[in-house]
């Protein structure tokens, strides 16, 4: 890991318009991502964790222009890429790649593995020795080159995920956005992919934006973690710090909810009450206040900002200090 920033997201907002009425006027927005900032250094893994609908996938998509950013800025190294046109974007396209959750929908069923991997090579480096490169990337992803002529449906979930990784690698990216890459896989396969991702990071110096809902997985792979709730970052810290010293009540509740695979550590814990509010109808003030056991008037009135509470530890809570002491 170096100190060079490869990706910086500043106050990113992704809103989807809500249209209603006779003329389908925009009457409001679903604030999928509502002012998120973070940065990723070269060789670092930034984990983004949160429950479904919290906007973590949308952030990933916004970075690679699959969703338009409503406001805010995205930088690749020094270059702002937020609103670049497709043509202007082209030089940066290869640098940021994505790995998807569903290994079944992420590969074109009508293309052979070779073609899938060759597509970015042919597009970005038309002069390259395609066959040799395909072999190399397949090997890198832990697949044998005999796979080349097969079609995706002949592979198991884990192998498909490897093909997806090989395809991403074929662009020679610096950043990989991994959107829940292991959540659809069986436990015994999950670990293979996690290990592969870690190995690739070591060997190629990649940076990851690792999006997942499984805290254990995120914890295992990330250097730093951001906890999201309803489109906002609630807490950002290094992995160790976050796990040892979670400050935000939501982070704490999340940790408490995760079942521990050890019957002896079974606890009579009280789970977090209530459900995530609909993003159409976000509560005022702190977005977590409806479920927060410590919520006060202040939480209902004012939106807490992310504040620095320690070395690289940010938290967005009015009461973190009190809770901490408790």
């Amino acid at each position, binding site marked *: 890991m170096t100190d060079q920033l490869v990706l910086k997201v500043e106050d990113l907002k992704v809103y989807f318009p809500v249209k209603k009425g006779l003329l389908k006027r925009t009457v409001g927005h679903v604030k999928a991502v509502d002012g998120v900032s973070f940065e990723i250094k070269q060789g670092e893994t930034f984990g983004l964790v949160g429950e479904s609908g919290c906007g973590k996938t949308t952030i990933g*998509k916004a970075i*690679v*222009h*699959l969703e338009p950013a409503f406001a805010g800025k995205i930088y690749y190294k020094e270059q702002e890429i937020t609103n670049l046109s*497709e043509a202007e*974007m*082209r030089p940066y*396209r*290869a640098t*940021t*790649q*994505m790995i*998807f*959750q*569903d290994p079944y*929908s*992420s*590969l*074109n*069923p*009508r*293309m052979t593995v070779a073609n*899938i991997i060759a*597509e*970015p090579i042919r*597009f*970005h480096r038309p002069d390259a020795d395609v066959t040799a490169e395909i072999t190399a990337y397949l090997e890198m992803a832990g697949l044998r080159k*005999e796979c080349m*002529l*097969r*079609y995706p*449906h*002949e592979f198991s979930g884990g192998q498909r995920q490897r093909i*997806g990784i090989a*395809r*991403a690698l074929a*662009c020679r990216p610096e950043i990989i956005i991994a959107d829940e890459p292991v959540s659809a896989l069986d436990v015994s396969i999950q670990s293979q992919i996690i290990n592969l991702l870690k190995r690739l990071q070591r060997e190629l110096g990649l940076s990851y934006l690792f999006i997942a809902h499984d805290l254990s997985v995120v914890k295992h792979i990330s250097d730093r973690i951001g906890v999201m709730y309803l489109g906002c970052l609630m807490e950002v810290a290094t992995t160790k710090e976050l796990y040892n010293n979670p400050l935000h009540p939501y982070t704490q509740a999340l940790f408490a909810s995760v079942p521990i695979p050890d019957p002896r550590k079974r606890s009579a814990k009280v789970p977090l009450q209530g459900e995530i509010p609909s993003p159409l109808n976000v509560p005022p003030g702190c977005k977590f206040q409806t479920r927060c056991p410590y919520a006060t008037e202040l939480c209902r009135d004012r939106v807490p900002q992310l504040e620095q509470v320690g070395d690289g530890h940010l938290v967005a809570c009015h009461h973190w200090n009190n809770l901490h002491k408790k």
Partner: protein
Amino acid sequence: MLRIVFLVNLFLLLLFAGQITTNADTLISYSIFAVITLILAAIILTLRRRNKTKERGIRTGWDLMWNKLRRNKSAMAGMWVVCGLCYVAILAPFIVPFDPYIMDWGALSLGPESHHWLGTDEMGRDTLSRAIYATRIAMGIGLMAVTLNSLIGTSLGLLAGYYGGNTDNFIMRLLEFWNSIPFILMAIALMAALGSGLFNLILVVSLTGILEFARIIRGDSQLLRQADYVNAAKVMGIPDRQILKRHILPNCLAPIIIMATLRIGETILTIAGLSFLGLGIQAPMPSLGSMLANGQQFLYENITMSIVPGTVILLIVLSFNLFGDGLRDALDSRITQ
């Protein structure tokens, strides 16, 4: 299996070689047949080479589909009949016992007999020969109209589905407007405006049902647009045109083929309906619809005149429908009905 077909083809080619006269019909048929035989040979060769090279059965989506289809008896029956009809259609000039146009005024409106196997019509033309030629024309028109139809429908549906938003709105609204004009009326009016040529007929018939076609393709491409592999392609910077071509279109192919197969039957029925109104294929060219519409006037006198074209229409529509249904089951597609 394929090899036997190929040998039969070769045999037929040699058999009919002597019959190629200056008649354009036979020449066209013969060359089409020759080309098909060549293609068959090419397929056999590639299959053989693939059989050699593949170590363990590489099964593409098509292979899987074929396996499933093969177990569906009615679909296979449909397919064989379709193949048979194609042979009849292509080889028509060689296999007709009589010139389908020649009128034998001494043999009017006959029932089946030893000379004319399926009898003659009220102008002394051989019903069997006319039915064979009519099959050729029906299949040809059906195929062309459906091709045109699916081309228009597919491209509009693809664009609407992939680009979404205003493009989608515009295309789909336009197609809905188009659909709101009752088809038969539109066909009659268009035929009146354009004249009743064969080409116009194809054009008019191919304009029907574009909406259904486009709707399904649009639905599919809308789904595919959100597929992760399309996202992946976008992230890699692949231009839209190429995404449409390489990722979306190939994955819409199954519904397109199914729809097209099912549509052929409909097209033939539509043309028959137009013939009934006097707007179909013009005399003296034999067409199933006008043969049936005409035979209907002789229902008492000579029922073979209706039975023959009726059966052929039934056979064509039924076999294409069975085959199409089988395809749909095999591909487990989202299309219903």
